[in-house]
Protein backbone atom coordinates (compact mmCIF):
# COMPACT_ATOMS: atom_id res chain seq x y z
CA UNK A 1 0.00 0.00 0.00
CA UNK A 2 1.41 3.34 -1.02
CA UNK A 3 0.40 5.95 1.52
CA UNK A 4 0.64 9.70 1.54
CA UNK A 5 -0.38 11.82 4.51
CA UNK A 6 -1.88 8.70 6.08
CA UNK A 7 -4.06 7.80 3.10
CA UNK A 8 -3.61 5.21 0.38
CA UNK A 9 -2.79 6.73 -2.96
CA UNK A 10 -3.11 4.05 -5.61
CA UNK A 11 -6.62 4.23 -6.96
CA UNK A 12 -8.67 1.75 -5.04
CA UNK A 13 -12.36 1.39 -5.79
CA UNK A 14 -13.78 -1.01 -3.25
CA UNK A 15 -17.49 -0.58 -2.93
CA UNK A 16 -17.54 -2.56 0.31
CA UNK A 17 -15.32 -0.12 2.17
CA UNK A 18 -16.64 3.08 3.66
CA UNK A 19 -13.48 4.93 2.77
CA UNK A 20 -11.04 3.04 0.57
CA UNK A 21 -8.50 5.80 0.96
CA UNK A 22 -8.30 5.10 4.68
CA UNK A 23 -5.14 3.02 5.00
CA UNK A 24 -6.23 1.52 8.31
CA UNK A 25 -9.54 0.32 6.95
CA UNK A 26 -7.92 -1.11 3.84
CA UNK A 27 -5.30 -2.86 6.00
CA UNK A 28 -8.01 -4.44 8.13
CA UNK A 29 -9.83 -5.54 4.97
CA UNK A 30 -6.72 -7.29 3.63
CA UNK A 31 -6.00 -8.92 6.99
CA UNK A 32 -9.56 -10.25 6.97
CA UNK A 33 -9.08 -11.54 3.40
CA UNK A 34 -6.08 -13.58 4.53
CA UNK A 35 -3.07 -11.45 3.58
CA UNK A 36 -0.08 -12.84 5.51
CA UNK A 37 1.74 -9.56 5.85
CA UNK A 38 1.23 -5.94 4.80
CA UNK A 39 3.77 -3.42 3.56
CA UNK A 40 3.15 0.31 3.81
CA UNK A 41 5.27 2.54 1.67
CA UNK A 42 5.17 6.19 2.66
CA UNK A 43 5.58 8.49 -0.30
CA UNK A 44 5.05 11.69 1.69
CA UNK A 45 7.54 14.21 0.41
CA UNK A 46 8.17 16.50 3.36
CA UNK A 47 9.82 15.76 6.65
CA UNK A 48 7.06 17.48 8.67
CA UNK A 49 4.44 15.19 7.26
CA UNK A 50 6.33 12.14 8.56
CA UNK A 51 4.44 12.60 11.80
CA UNK A 52 1.30 11.39 10.08
CA UNK A 53 3.13 8.17 9.18
CA UNK A 54 3.88 7.46 12.84
CA UNK A 55 0.23 8.10 13.69
CA UNK A 56 -0.81 5.76 10.90
CA UNK A 57 1.53 3.04 12.16
CA UNK A 58 0.01 3.37 15.63
CA UNK A 59 -3.53 3.08 14.28
CA UNK A 60 -2.64 0.07 12.13
CA UNK A 61 -0.86 -1.66 15.03
CA UNK A 62 -3.89 -1.09 17.26
CA UNK A 63 -6.22 -2.68 14.71
CA UNK A 64 -4.14 -5.36 13.05
CA UNK A 65 -3.13 -8.78 14.32
CA UNK A 66 -0.82 -9.73 11.46
CA UNK A 67 2.75 -8.52 10.84
CA UNK A 68 3.41 -5.36 8.89
CA UNK A 69 6.38 -3.55 7.41
CA UNK A 70 6.79 0.19 6.96
CA UNK A 71 9.09 1.85 4.45
CA UNK A 72 9.76 5.10 2.69
CA UNK A 73 12.23 7.80 3.61
CA UNK A 74 13.86 5.94 6.49
CA UNK A 75 17.48 7.03 6.86
CA UNK A 76 18.53 6.83 10.50
CA UNK A 77 18.25 4.45 13.48
CA UNK A 78 16.14 7.15 15.16
CA UNK A 79 13.58 6.95 12.32
CA UNK A 80 13.42 3.19 12.84
CA UNK A 81 13.12 3.42 16.63
CA UNK A 82 10.12 5.72 16.31
CA UNK A 83 8.33 3.42 13.86
CA UNK A 84 9.02 0.24 15.85
CA UNK A 85 7.87 1.91 19.05
CA UNK A 86 4.69 2.91 17.27
CA UNK A 87 4.07 -0.79 16.58
CA UNK A 88 5.65 -1.61 13.21
CA UNK A 89 7.15 -5.11 13.07
CA UNK A 90 9.72 -4.40 10.39
CA UNK A 91 11.04 -1.47 8.43
CA UNK A 92 12.16 -1.48 4.85
CA UNK A 93 15.10 0.62 3.76
CA UNK A 94 16.22 1.31 0.24
CA UNK A 95 18.11 4.38 -0.99
CA UNK A 96 19.52 5.32 2.43
CA UNK A 97 21.16 1.88 2.57
CA UNK A 98 22.65 2.28 -0.90
CA UNK A 99 24.09 5.66 0.07
CA UNK A 100 25.27 4.40 3.45
CA UNK A 101 25.50 0.58 3.66
CA UNK A 102 26.63 0.90 7.29
CA UNK A 103 23.00 1.77 8.08
CA UNK A 104 22.07 -1.90 7.58
CA UNK A 105 24.51 -3.12 10.23
CA UNK A 106 23.64 -0.25 12.59
CA UNK A 107 19.97 -1.23 12.40
CA UNK A 108 20.66 -4.97 12.67
CA UNK A 109 22.77 -4.45 15.80
CA UNK A 110 20.34 -2.12 17.48
CA UNK A 111 16.99 -3.68 16.53
CA UNK A 112 17.84 -7.17 15.23
CA UNK A 113 18.07 -8.44 11.65
CA UNK A 114 14.51 -9.74 11.83
CA UNK A 115 13.12 -6.23 11.45
CA UNK A 116 15.47 -5.00 8.71
CA UNK A 117 14.03 -5.51 5.23
CA UNK A 118 16.28 -4.36 2.43
CA UNK A 119 14.18 -3.19 -0.51
CA UNK A 120 16.00 -3.08 -3.80
CA UNK A 121 14.75 -1.83 -7.17
CA UNK A 122 16.79 -3.15 -10.06
CA UNK A 123 16.73 -2.98 -13.81
CA UNK A 124 18.36 -5.22 -16.38
CA UNK A 125 20.49 -3.01 -18.61
CA UNK A 126 22.41 -4.67 -21.46
CA UNK A 127 22.17 -8.02 -19.71
CA UNK A 128 23.40 -6.73 -16.34
CA UNK A 129 21.16 -6.26 -13.31
CA UNK A 130 21.81 -2.85 -11.82
CA UNK A 131 20.44 -1.23 -8.64
CA UNK A 132 18.30 1.85 -9.28
CA UNK A 133 16.96 4.52 -6.95
CA UNK A 134 14.01 6.91 -7.13
CA UNK A 135 11.62 4.42 -8.66
CA UNK A 136 13.97 3.41 -11.43
CA UNK A 137 15.04 6.89 -12.48
CA UNK A 138 18.45 7.05 -10.87
CA UNK A 139 21.15 4.62 -11.92
CA UNK A 140 23.72 3.68 -9.26
CA UNK A 141 26.10 1.50 -11.27
CA UNK A 142 25.90 -1.07 -8.47
CA UNK A 143 25.50 -4.74 -9.43
CA UNK A 144 22.32 -6.24 -7.98
CA UNK A 145 23.86 -9.55 -6.92
CA UNK A 146 26.91 -7.98 -5.28
CA UNK A 147 24.66 -5.58 -3.40
CA UNK A 148 22.37 -8.31 -2.09
CA UNK A 149 25.23 -10.49 -0.88
CA UNK A 150 26.76 -7.48 0.85
CA UNK A 151 23.42 -6.54 2.41
CA UNK A 152 23.06 -10.05 3.85
CA UNK A 153 26.58 -9.87 5.30
CA UNK A 154 25.78 -6.49 6.86
CA UNK A 155 22.75 -8.00 8.60
CA UNK A 156 19.67 -7.50 6.43
CA UNK A 157 16.96 -9.94 7.51
CA UNK A 158 14.93 -10.05 4.30
CA UNK A 159 15.24 -8.88 0.71
CA UNK A 160 12.32 -7.22 -1.07
CA UNK A 161 13.30 -7.34 -4.73
CA UNK A 162 11.39 -5.33 -7.33
CA UNK A 163 12.30 -5.73 -10.96
CA UNK A 164 11.74 -2.44 -12.73
CA UNK A 165 11.58 -4.38 -16.01
CA UNK A 166 8.56 -6.31 -14.75
CA UNK A 167 6.84 -3.83 -12.42
CA UNK A 168 3.52 -2.72 -13.88
CA UNK A 169 3.67 -5.10 -16.85
CA UNK A 170 1.38 -7.79 -15.37
CA UNK A 171 3.46 -10.35 -17.26
CA UNK A 172 4.79 -12.18 -14.23
CA UNK A 173 7.67 -11.78 -11.78
CA UNK A 174 11.40 -11.77 -12.67
CA UNK A 175 11.69 -15.46 -11.84
CA UNK A 176 15.08 -16.25 -13.29
CA UNK A 177 16.73 -13.41 -11.39
CA UNK A 178 14.73 -14.18 -8.25
CA UNK A 179 15.84 -17.80 -8.29
CA UNK A 180 19.47 -16.73 -8.61
CA UNK A 181 19.09 -14.26 -5.72
CA UNK A 182 17.23 -16.72 -3.55
CA UNK A 183 20.00 -19.30 -3.97
CA UNK A 184 22.77 -16.81 -3.31
CA UNK A 185 21.54 -15.72 0.11
CA UNK A 186 20.28 -17.52 3.18
CA UNK A 187 17.60 -14.96 4.08
CA UNK A 188 14.06 -14.76 2.71
CA UNK A 189 13.56 -13.10 -0.68
CA UNK A 190 10.23 -11.44 -1.44
CA UNK A 191 9.22 -11.19 -5.10
CA UNK A 192 7.71 -7.90 -6.22
CA UNK A 193 6.71 -6.43 -9.55
CA UNK A 194 4.84 -8.03 -12.40
CA UNK A 195 1.92 -9.93 -10.86
CA UNK A 196 -0.96 -10.13 -13.34
CA UNK A 197 -2.69 -13.43 -12.64
CA UNK A 198 -2.72 -16.31 -10.19
CA UNK A 199 -0.33 -18.45 -12.28
CA UNK A 200 2.30 -15.74 -11.88
CA UNK A 201 2.25 -16.27 -8.12
CA UNK A 202 2.64 -20.03 -8.46
CA UNK A 203 5.47 -19.49 -10.95
CA UNK A 204 7.39 -17.16 -8.65
CA UNK A 205 7.23 -19.65 -5.78
CA UNK A 206 8.21 -22.61 -7.95
CA UNK A 207 10.51 -21.23 -10.65
CA UNK A 208 11.52 -18.03 -8.86
CA UNK A 209 12.13 -19.86 -5.53
CA UNK A 210 10.64 -16.81 -3.82
CA UNK A 211 9.90 -17.06 -0.12
CA UNK A 212 6.99 -14.64 -0.38
CA UNK A 213 5.27 -12.64 -3.09
CA UNK A 214 4.10 -9.05 -2.90
CA UNK A 215 1.52 -7.36 -5.06
CA UNK A 216 -0.55 -4.19 -4.91
CA UNK A 217 -2.70 -3.22 -7.86
CA UNK A 218 -4.04 -6.69 -8.71
CA UNK A 219 -5.46 -6.77 -5.19
CA UNK A 220 -6.50 -3.10 -5.10
CA UNK A 221 -8.47 -3.51 -8.32
CA UNK A 222 -9.79 -6.91 -7.30
CA UNK A 223 -8.36 -8.59 -10.36
CA UNK A 224 -7.20 -11.25 -7.92
CA UNK A 225 -8.92 -12.01 -4.62
CA UNK A 226 -6.63 -13.26 -1.86
CA UNK A 227 -8.82 -16.18 -0.68
CA UNK A 228 -9.08 -17.53 -4.25
CA UNK A 229 -5.38 -17.03 -4.84
CA UNK A 230 -4.51 -19.01 -1.72
CA UNK A 231 -6.82 -21.86 -2.68
CA UNK A 232 -5.23 -21.92 -6.11
CA UNK A 233 -1.69 -21.99 -4.67
CA UNK A 234 -2.67 -24.85 -2.42
CA UNK A 235 -3.78 -26.91 -5.45
CA UNK A 236 -0.24 -26.30 -6.77
CA UNK A 237 1.18 -27.80 -3.55
CA UNK A 238 2.57 -24.50 -2.37
CA UNK A 239 2.21 -24.31 1.43
CA UNK A 240 -0.15 -21.45 2.31
CA UNK A 241 -2.10 -20.40 5.37
CA UNK A 242 -5.82 -20.69 4.69
Amino acid at each position, binding site marked *: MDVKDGRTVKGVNFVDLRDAGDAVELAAYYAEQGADELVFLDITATHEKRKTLVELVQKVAR*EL*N*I*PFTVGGGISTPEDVGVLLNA*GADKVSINSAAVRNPQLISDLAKRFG*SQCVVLAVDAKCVDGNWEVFLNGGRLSTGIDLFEWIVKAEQLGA*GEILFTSMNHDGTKNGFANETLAKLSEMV*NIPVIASGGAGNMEHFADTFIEGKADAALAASVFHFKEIEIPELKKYLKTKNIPV*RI
Partner: protein
Amino acid sequence: MKKQNIVIIDYDAGNIQSVKYAFERLGITPIVSKDKEVIRNADKVIFPGVGEASWAMNSLKENDLIDLIPDLKQPVLGICLGMQLMCESTEEGNTKALGIFPVSAKRFTNEQKVPHMGWNQLDDLKGGLLNGIKTSEFTYFVHSYYVPLIEETIASCDYIVPFSAALQKDNFYACQFHPEKSGDVGVKILENFINL
Protein backbone atom coordinates in the same frame (compact mmCIF):
# COMPACT_ATOMS: atom_id res chain seq x y z
CA MET B 1 -13.53 -11.41 29.19
CA LYS B 2 -12.26 -11.57 32.79
CA LYS B 3 -11.14 -8.17 34.04
CA GLN B 4 -7.67 -8.51 35.43
CA ASN B 5 -4.40 -6.86 36.05
CA ILE B 6 -1.96 -7.92 33.35
CA VAL B 7 1.58 -6.60 33.51
CA ILE B 8 3.98 -6.61 30.56
CA ILE B 9 7.59 -6.66 31.77
CA ASP B 10 9.36 -3.65 30.33
CA TYR B 11 13.10 -4.24 30.03
CA ASP B 12 13.81 -2.29 26.85
CA ALA B 13 13.82 -5.44 24.72
CA GLY B 14 11.96 -4.74 21.57
CA ASN B 15 8.46 -4.20 20.43
CA ILE B 16 6.04 -4.42 23.33
CA GLN B 17 3.50 -2.11 21.69
CA SER B 18 2.02 -4.95 19.61
CA VAL B 19 1.52 -7.12 22.69
CA LYS B 20 -0.10 -4.23 24.52
CA TYR B 21 -2.43 -3.49 21.60
CA ALA B 22 -3.39 -7.17 21.30
CA PHE B 23 -4.67 -7.17 24.91
CA GLU B 24 -6.39 -3.82 24.35
CA ARG B 25 -8.33 -5.36 21.48
CA LEU B 26 -9.55 -7.91 24.04
CA GLY B 27 -10.72 -5.14 26.34
CA ILE B 28 -7.82 -5.29 28.80
CA THR B 29 -5.36 -2.45 29.30
CA PRO B 30 -2.10 -4.02 30.43
CA ILE B 31 0.37 -2.17 32.61
CA VAL B 32 3.87 -1.91 31.15
CA SER B 33 6.34 -1.89 34.02
CA LYS B 34 9.78 -2.80 35.29
CA ASP B 35 8.77 -2.19 38.90
CA LYS B 36 9.21 -5.40 40.90
CA GLU B 37 6.23 -4.76 43.19
CA VAL B 38 3.95 -4.02 40.24
CA ILE B 39 5.08 -7.20 38.51
CA ARG B 40 4.76 -9.31 41.67
CA ASN B 41 1.21 -8.07 42.29
CA ALA B 42 -0.07 -8.74 38.76
CA ASP B 43 -2.75 -11.36 38.08
CA LYS B 44 -0.81 -12.39 34.98
CA VAL B 45 2.61 -11.46 33.66
CA ILE B 46 3.79 -11.20 30.05
CA PHE B 47 7.50 -11.60 29.40
CA PRO B 48 8.05 -10.39 25.83
CA GLY B 49 11.30 -10.08 23.93
CA VAL B 50 12.67 -9.17 20.56
CA GLY B 51 16.37 -8.76 20.02
CA GLU B 52 19.60 -10.43 20.99
CA ALA B 53 19.73 -12.79 23.98
CA SER B 54 22.88 -11.67 25.83
CA TRP B 55 21.87 -8.05 25.43
CA ALA B 56 18.38 -8.84 26.76
CA MET B 57 19.77 -10.76 29.77
CA ASN B 58 22.01 -7.80 30.54
CA SER B 59 19.02 -5.56 30.41
CA LEU B 60 17.14 -7.85 32.83
CA LYS B 61 20.17 -7.73 35.11
CA GLU B 62 20.38 -3.95 35.01
CA ASN B 63 16.71 -3.79 35.94
CA ASP B 64 17.29 -6.32 38.74
CA LEU B 65 14.67 -8.72 37.34
CA ILE B 66 16.72 -11.92 37.07
CA ASP B 67 15.72 -13.38 40.43
CA LEU B 68 12.18 -12.10 40.28
CA ILE B 69 10.91 -13.82 37.13
CA PRO B 70 11.59 -17.49 38.06
CA ASP B 71 10.07 -16.77 41.48
CA LEU B 72 6.70 -15.52 40.16
CA LYS B 73 3.66 -17.53 41.27
CA GLN B 74 0.96 -16.24 38.90
CA PRO B 75 0.67 -17.38 35.24
CA VAL B 76 3.58 -15.99 33.22
CA LEU B 77 3.66 -16.01 29.41
CA GLY B 78 7.02 -15.69 27.66
CA ILE B 79 6.94 -14.73 24.01
CA CYS B 80 9.65 -15.44 21.41
CA LEU B 81 12.98 -14.34 22.92
CA GLY B 82 11.11 -14.28 26.25
CA MET B 83 10.59 -18.05 25.88
CA GLN B 84 14.27 -18.65 25.08
CA LEU B 85 15.34 -16.59 28.09
CA MET B 86 13.14 -18.83 30.27
CA CYS B 87 15.41 -21.77 29.33
CA GLU B 88 18.69 -22.67 31.06
CA SER B 89 20.78 -21.07 28.39
CA THR B 90 20.87 -20.15 24.73
CA GLU B 91 23.59 -20.52 22.14
CA GLU B 92 22.92 -16.92 21.13
CA GLY B 93 25.88 -15.05 22.61
CA ASN B 94 26.52 -18.16 24.81
CA THR B 95 24.06 -16.73 27.27
CA LYS B 96 23.10 -18.18 30.64
CA ALA B 97 19.37 -17.61 31.00
CA LEU B 98 16.69 -17.84 33.71
CA GLY B 99 16.60 -21.64 34.01
CA ILE B 100 12.83 -22.16 34.27
CA PHE B 101 12.70 -24.79 31.51
CA PRO B 102 15.41 -27.50 31.70
CA VAL B 103 16.70 -27.07 28.16
CA SER B 104 19.03 -24.92 26.07
CA ALA B 105 18.04 -22.97 22.96
CA LYS B 106 20.09 -23.86 19.89
CA ARG B 107 20.79 -22.12 16.61
CA PHE B 108 19.13 -23.47 13.46
CA THR B 109 21.58 -24.99 11.02
CA ASN B 110 21.71 -23.31 7.62
CA GLU B 111 20.05 -26.15 5.72
CA GLN B 112 17.20 -23.76 5.01
CA LYS B 113 16.92 -20.01 5.34
CA VAL B 114 17.46 -18.56 8.79
CA PRO B 115 15.64 -16.84 10.47
CA HIS B 116 12.59 -19.05 10.34
CA MET B 117 10.30 -16.23 9.34
CA GLY B 118 6.65 -16.48 8.52
CA TRP B 119 3.53 -18.54 9.19
CA ASN B 120 3.92 -22.17 10.17
CA GLN B 121 1.72 -24.96 11.47
CA LEU B 122 1.40 -26.24 15.02
CA ASP B 123 1.32 -29.91 15.94
CA ASP B 124 1.16 -32.16 19.05
CA LEU B 125 -1.07 -29.66 20.84
CA LYS B 126 -1.61 -30.36 24.53
CA GLY B 127 -4.55 -28.11 25.50
CA GLY B 128 -4.37 -25.59 28.34
CA LEU B 129 -2.94 -22.47 26.78
CA LEU B 130 -3.74 -24.00 23.39
CA ASN B 131 -7.31 -25.09 24.12
CA GLY B 132 -9.48 -24.96 21.02
CA ILE B 133 -6.50 -24.64 18.65
CA LYS B 134 -6.46 -27.33 15.99
CA THR B 135 -3.44 -29.20 14.66
CA SER B 136 -2.16 -27.59 11.48
CA GLU B 137 -3.41 -24.10 12.35
CA PHE B 138 -0.87 -21.39 11.56
CA THR B 139 0.96 -18.96 13.82
CA TYR B 140 3.60 -16.35 12.99
CA PHE B 141 7.27 -17.08 13.76
CA VAL B 142 10.45 -15.00 13.54
CA HIS B 143 13.49 -16.64 15.13
CA SER B 144 16.99 -17.96 14.45
CA TYR B 145 17.29 -20.03 17.64
CA TYR B 146 14.95 -22.81 18.72
CA VAL B 147 14.08 -24.83 21.80
CA PRO B 148 14.29 -28.61 21.18
CA LEU B 149 11.33 -30.85 22.04
CA ILE B 150 11.19 -31.64 25.77
CA GLU B 151 8.70 -33.05 28.25
CA GLU B 152 7.35 -29.53 28.84
CA THR B 153 6.59 -29.02 25.13
CA ILE B 154 2.85 -28.33 24.67
CA ALA B 155 3.00 -27.65 20.92
CA SER B 156 5.57 -28.45 18.28
CA CYS B 157 6.45 -26.99 14.92
CA ASP B 158 8.77 -28.20 12.18
CA TYR B 159 11.37 -26.09 10.40
CA ILE B 160 14.72 -27.72 9.61
CA VAL B 161 14.09 -29.76 12.78
CA PRO B 162 11.03 -30.37 14.96
CA PHE B 163 11.12 -27.82 17.79
CA SER B 164 9.04 -26.51 20.70
CA ALA B 165 6.43 -23.99 19.56
CA ALA B 166 5.09 -23.69 23.11
CA LEU B 167 6.13 -24.82 26.58
CA GLN B 168 4.53 -25.12 29.98
CA LYS B 169 5.87 -25.90 33.42
CA ASP B 170 3.64 -25.16 36.43
CA ASN B 171 2.61 -21.50 36.16
CA PHE B 172 5.13 -20.76 33.39
CA TYR B 173 3.90 -20.70 29.80
CA ALA B 174 5.84 -19.73 26.72
CA CYS B 175 5.44 -19.58 22.98
CA GLN B 176 8.05 -19.23 20.28
CA PHE B 177 5.55 -17.71 17.85
CA HIS B 178 4.01 -14.27 18.27
CA PRO B 179 0.38 -14.72 19.40
CA GLU B 180 -0.11 -10.96 19.06
CA LYS B 181 0.67 -11.26 15.33
CA SER B 182 -0.96 -14.60 14.62
CA GLY B 183 -4.40 -13.52 13.48
CA ASP B 184 -7.46 -15.18 15.00
CA VAL B 185 -5.44 -18.18 16.23
CA GLY B 186 -3.26 -15.84 18.26
CA VAL B 187 -6.30 -14.04 19.66
CA LYS B 188 -7.67 -17.37 20.90
CA ILE B 189 -4.37 -18.20 22.60
CA LEU B 190 -4.26 -14.84 24.39
CA GLU B 191 -7.88 -15.34 25.48
CA ASN B 192 -6.92 -18.74 26.83
CA PHE B 193 -4.09 -17.15 28.79
CA ILE B 194 -6.44 -14.53 30.22
CA ASN B 195 -8.88 -17.27 31.21
CA LEU B 196 -6.30 -19.53 32.91
